């Protein structure tokens, strides 16, 4: 394994270790709760990045699959009984896979269109999934909302299982990104992002590659939705397919650095606690939406590449300047 890869693995292990230790060190419920939310967004943002960051196709429909995952778990409880306690967590990968497989035909149709149309078509998916959640009343209970049974986790550490689930999903998303980047699939995706027609021209199975990335994104997103549903124990169409959650995840990805591995997670680690802090302090202010929009705007216009790439190029520029200065000094002899 190369040195870079070893460092990458070490970083991942450190993050995993810190993540696992966190809820046991800071075990107060509200802190773990913030951890759950942070990791939820980190997983969503990383999954979004896995597709949109690496293929260059912006999808605005991710949250539809979050909702599908939430409802799939809820329906499994309601109509089949998914067991209690920890069992639903083990059922999640299957539930998520089901959603991912179901999404492939839709993605295949959407991916036949060009980038802008694709973004718009995925946006309409939000509406479609919400409408289905409303209308298929016998399955989803419609607008009344669907209840999930409350697990009997010990009250002193009630949030911890959910935290660990979200952590697992975030690590899974990061791991998939990392593996993808280092694999042939990753090369194909980057080629597609650079110039899709040329990629197709050299024989890359463009549609296949995009669909694989898409399925991975949907798989993770649906599982995150399932954990969220189990956490809240009550879901309804508007809350399960909430555009603001998606905007948050996209914002965090852009803030951290689109197309980078750790960018989305960094974005989530910065924004979610900040968001909670703002709500605590600004409490009764009505300017929540305006504030959100302003932050988004600032990030997009001022820092469009995000923190990581900007830091990276900043560090590179610094190193370059130092090298040039050293060369200049060496050529001129002793400093004047």
């Amino acid at each position, binding site marked *: 394994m190369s040195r870079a890869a070893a460092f990458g693995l070490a970083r991942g292990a450190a993050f995993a270790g810190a993540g696992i230790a966190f809820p046991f060190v800071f075990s107060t419920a509200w802190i773990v709760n913030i951890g759950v939310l942070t990791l939820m967004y980190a997983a969503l943002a990383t999954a979004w990045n896995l597709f949109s960051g690496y293929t260059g196709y*912006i999808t*605005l429909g991710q949250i539809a699959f979050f909702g599908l995952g939430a409802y799939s778990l809820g329906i499994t409880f309601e109509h089949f009984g998914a067991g209690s306690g920890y069992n639903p967590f083990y059922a999640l990968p299957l539930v998520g896979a089901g959603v991912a497989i179901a999404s492939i035909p*839709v993605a295949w*149709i*959407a991916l*036949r*269109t*060009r*980038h*802008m*149309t694709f*973004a*718009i*078509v995925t*946006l*309409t998916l*939000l*509406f*479609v999934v919400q*409408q*289905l959640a*409303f*209308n298929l009343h016998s399955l989803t209970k419609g607008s009344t909302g669907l209840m999930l049974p409350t697990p009997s986790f010990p009250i002193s550490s009630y949030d911890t299982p959910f935290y660990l689930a979200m952590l697992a999903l975030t690590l899974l998303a990061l791991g998939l990104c990392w593996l993808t980047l280092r694999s042939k699939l990753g090369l194909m995706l980057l080629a597609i992002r650079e110039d899709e*027609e040329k990629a197709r021209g050299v024989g890359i199975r463009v549609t296949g590659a995009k669909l694989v990335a898409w399925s991975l994104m949907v798989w993770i997103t649906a599982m995150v939705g399932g954990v969220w549903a189990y956490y809240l124990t009550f879901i309804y169409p508007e809350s399960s397919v909430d*555009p603001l959650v998606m*905007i948050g995840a*996209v914002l965090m990805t*852009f803030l951290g650095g689109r197309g980078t591995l750790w960018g989305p997670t960094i974005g989530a680690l910065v924004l979610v606690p900040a968001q909670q802090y703002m709500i605590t302090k600004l409490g009764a202010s*009505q*300017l*929540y*939406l*305006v*504030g*959100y*929009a*302003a932050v*988004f*705007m600032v990030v*997009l*216009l001022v820092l*469009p590449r995000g923190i990581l790439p900007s830091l990276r190029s900043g560090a590179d520029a610094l190193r370059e300047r130092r090298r040039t200065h050293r060369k200049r000094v060496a050529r001129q002899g002793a400093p004047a």
Partner: protein
Amino acid sequence: MHQLIQAIIIGILIGGVYALMASGLTLVFGIMKVINVAQGALVILAAYLSYALWSHLHVDPFLSIFIVMPAMFVLGVAVQLVFVRSLRGPDASELSLLVTWALALGIEGVLSVVFKTTYRVSLPSYSDTTWTVAGYQINEVRLLGFVTSAVLLVLLSVLLTRTRFGRAVRATVQNPTAAELLGVDANRVQTLSFGLGVSMAAAAGAVYGVIYPFNPGSHYDLISRLLSIVVLGGLGSLGGAVFAAVGMGIVESVVAVEISPIWAAFSFFVVLIAFLLVRPQGIFGVRERTL
């Protein structure tokens, strides 16, 4: 049968208004490859302006168009200069999607603070008048709305085909580089067209606010319909947008009456997806050329 035709009539009347809203959206895309996700929010903003003029100064909503359109044109120009023009690079189109979405959220936020989330609707004296023509009910306000939209769309098409500005616009759509070489100031064309697109939405907003109750959150529903319309019609095609808008109005209205209202909007999206399966570029769209 009577019911079906009544539904089709209603669908056409509202389709015209949607066509007006969508015209600006597709025009802007054709020229600068920018999708203005804030179009819905701008329609609602115009609806609020028109409502404010009606409720405080008793200006008739249709006449308020003469005030609202120029005002929103200026706003559109400002928005383009501040937010859209600064987007550069290969990501510009997609970034514009997110920037205009943020703008839409900002507009929604400000409107919520200023006007609260209560539903509003302008109620001029003739809002209840309905005529019966050949046995079918035609509501005066909706008819006026349709006529207004039709007139403005015709004026827009005349502007695009018979004026110098219109020719500059069409040249920029077809081939921006060649247009610039021929002396067209691309920046100016883009800015003015954006303003034009917003003013179209403004007129539609004034009309919308008389027919339907609205609140700041109404823009979500609007923009998802508008985006579907322009995609179905073919991004950049004005005729396609009109066709798709009226078509959507009819589909929704008929499904609401014949099947059930809960499937009305949904059915339109089904139509859209099915159509894209066969023809991904939309009705009058052009297959993406490799540059």
